[in-house]
């Protein structure tokens, strides 16, 4: 059962390549590019309508592809989204390789869904064959996660990103909190300070970005409703102008201004949904993924700690333990270094993305108000000109 225990973790908890004795190509060079984890890729595939441009965003640096890294892995190209994770470096455990790729859309009369090709290569005895290829959909992943959680309640089962284009549901958020608490109780003792800081940042960032996501969605909704009412508002003035003589022009003018502002609102809304909402949502998913990453790092550390503890209490074979500890120490060091390097890069990207998204939002609003201003000002000018004309007519 042990081998099987680890198999499911293999998908998302990649372990450092440079760990003792492992001959992984590329050494432990940190992977450049945006940190898209398997779960993130999953999310993107699900969320996006096979729109390649969107996929581009999440795989900015398609360069890397190293068969390694603790740090979440990059796709080689947007389309293939190959997720190759090596499990552990020890030769005796390098026996299970899984890739997930080729998303495909299926349309039936009842529903539309996406399936992914899962290729499993293994040398393990438990498997009947050495290579398997299956197609699974999101529901199936969910089922697997649930079965694993049932069977192994104390192990950390990796996150599955959310299925739909929305923020994490209440239950998953609660689940996260519970796990986070459980983890923090376990990991706090030995976690180095910089990772404490990092963890703290991630927690708060996650909270805030989720809130911003909600706020932004709400703003969109309110603007939509404002737009709907405005559409009705203008025409009433036209209706009124039909029963007036002297006021008809002024009323029609007001109606036309309202209609133009209405169109400007529509434009503002679409700008919001193109520039701001997707970026915020992307970082909501990032924040979930990052929390998973932290957990995995902590878990690796915890493994080391437990072995060290075992050694000191002299419970098992000292020599074997010492060897294992040595390897684990290297593993931990690699994990930490990879994460540290990746972290700075991710933060820089985040800063740029957020800055640019909000700047765009501000620009959309400025443009909206400028358009409306021009409309009303030109109406006002026409009215005062008319007034002057009329006044001079009266005098003559």
């Amino acid at each position, binding site marked *: 059962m042990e081998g099987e225990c680890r198999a499911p973790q293999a998908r998302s908890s990649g372990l450092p390549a440079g760990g003792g004795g492992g001959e992984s190509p590329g050494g432990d060079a940190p992977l450049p590019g945006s940190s898209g984890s398997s779960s993130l890729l999953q999310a993107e595939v699900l969320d996006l309508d096979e729109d390649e441009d969107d996929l581009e965003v999440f795989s900015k640096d398609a360069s890397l592809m190293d068969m390694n890294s603790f740090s979440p892995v990059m796709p080689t190209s947007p389309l293939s989204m190959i997720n190759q994770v090596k499990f552990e470096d020890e030769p005796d455990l390098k026996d299970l390789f899984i890739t997930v790729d080729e998303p495909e859309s299926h349309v039936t009369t009842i529903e539309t869904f996406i399936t992914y090709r899962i290729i499993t290569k293994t040398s393990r005895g438990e498997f009947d064959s050495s290579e398997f290829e299956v197609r699974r959909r999101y529901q199936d992943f969910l089922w697997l996660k649930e079965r694993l959680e049932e069977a192994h309640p104390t192990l950390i089962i990796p996150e599955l990103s959310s299925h739909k284009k929305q923020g994490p549901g209440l239950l998953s958020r609660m689940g996260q909190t519970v796990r986070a608490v459980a983890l923090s109780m376990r990991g706090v003792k030995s976690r180095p300070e910089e990772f404490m800081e990092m963890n703290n940042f991630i927690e708060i960032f996650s909270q805030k970005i989720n809130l911003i996501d909600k706020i932004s969605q709400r703003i969109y909704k*309110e603007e939509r409703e404002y737009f709907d009412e405005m559409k009705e508002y203008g025409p009433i003035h036209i209706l009124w102008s039909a029963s007036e003589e002297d006021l008809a022009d002024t009323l029609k003018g007001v109606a036309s*201004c309202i209609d133009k502002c209405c169109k400007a609102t529509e434009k503002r809304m679409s700008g919001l949904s193109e520039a701001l909402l997707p970026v915020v949502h992307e970082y909501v998913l990032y924040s979930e993924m990052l929390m998973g990453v932290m957990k995995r790092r902590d878990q690796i550390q915890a493994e080391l700690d437990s072995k060290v503890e075992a050694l000191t209490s002299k419970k098992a074979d000292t020599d074997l333990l010492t060897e294992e500890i040595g390897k684990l120490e290297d593993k931990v060091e690699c994990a930490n270094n990879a994460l540290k390097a990746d972290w700075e890069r991710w933060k820089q990207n985040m800063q740029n993305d957020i800055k640019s998204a909000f700047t765009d939002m501000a620009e959309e609003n400025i443009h909206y108000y400028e358009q409306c201003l021009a409309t009303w000002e030109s109406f006002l000018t026409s009215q005062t000109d008319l007034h002057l004309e009329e006044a001079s007519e009266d005098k003559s």
Partner: protein
Amino acid sequence: MEQALSDPERRLQPAPLEPLGHPDGGLESVVGEEAEGARDEGPGDGTMMENNFWLKKIEISVSEAEKRTGRNAMNMQETYTAYLIETRSVEHIDGQSVLTDSLWRRYSEFELLRNYLLVYYPHIVVPPLPEKRAEFVWHKLSADNMDPDFVERRRIGLENFLLRVASHPILCRDKIFYLFLTQEGNWKETVNETGFQLKADSRLKALNATFRVKNPDKRFTELKHYSDELQSVISHLLRVRARVADRLYGVYKVHGNYGRVFSEWSAIEKEMGDGLQSAGHHMDVYASSIDDILEDEEHYADQLKEYLFYAEALRAVCRKHELMQYDLEMAAQDLASKKQQCEELATGNVRTFSLKGMTTKLFGQETPEQREARIKVLEEQINEGEQQLKSKNQEGREFVKNAWADIERFKEQKNHDLKEALISYAVMQISMCKKGIQVWTNAKECFSKM
């Protein structure tokens, strides 16, 4: 309304000319343009109207509102709002104003005044009172009559009402109006003593006339249609405006949440922190700016509401015309029928049904003397009837002439006021846009520094 507020001076000529409660007091046609033009031109300007007893200009203001408790007619405790009305006379030379009168009135007294004016000046489009209960509210506004915002807007509305009456060339001369401004105690009794409630046309009579009148003046029929349309379209507009205001409020206020979250987020950021924090501040400014914007819009809505209620005043004048016309038609019909009776009696040809004819058949012919007597009575009645018809005709014509003059005056006023209101709406929108540009430009700068 804007104009009324900014130009509070109105010439008031209390005129003991018209005996108290004289119903035809207002029928003399007054040259409207003089008053109108003078109003536009503001203080210090010339011509006073003839028969003017006071050469001073008068300023009227409803300056305060106060909650009071008292006992009502059924001796029950009640809470109501009282409004302070101050009248000032303006010295011609130096423009200084001196407080001449100051008293408190409640809304029901205003209503009493207006009902009196409606009865005694049926040919005048009597200015409306502000609404009794808050309508067309959007969610932020309370529909409660005691709500301070409502009370404030009502105070302005009541002041506007008084200014409208005071600037009307005919209404301003009314004694009861003058007493309303100057005699606190006993005013209600004075009004009631005029007996105006009895003189009022019953609703039923008016309704009957509206259905049965055959030949109303076409202009009044058209005016009635116009006032129906005006009422309907302004109601619709006010309703949608309230909904738009609601939505706009939502958009602005949700942005305020950004302020809070940005501020919290900035705590964990080193480089982005300052930018986030200051951007958040601008989001707060943006969110709170909507309150003033919508308050201004509420004044605009009040201006439209005044004309919504004016529509009813227009209809009242039309109803009066229909009533008089119907009355006239009935009188003419009655006269014609009597003439015919008379003719039949004289010639012996009974074509029309009459009770006398029936009884004659049943009980026998009448004597020539009896017939003569009856003819005489009828001839007298016919004479009377002709006199009445003549005077009714004249009254009707007078009414139409004077009413139409006031309607023309009203149309001018309406076009002027509504145009101004619409333009002020545009000005409000412009101001809102400018504020928006400023806030978002500031925010953008903060974002770019992140």
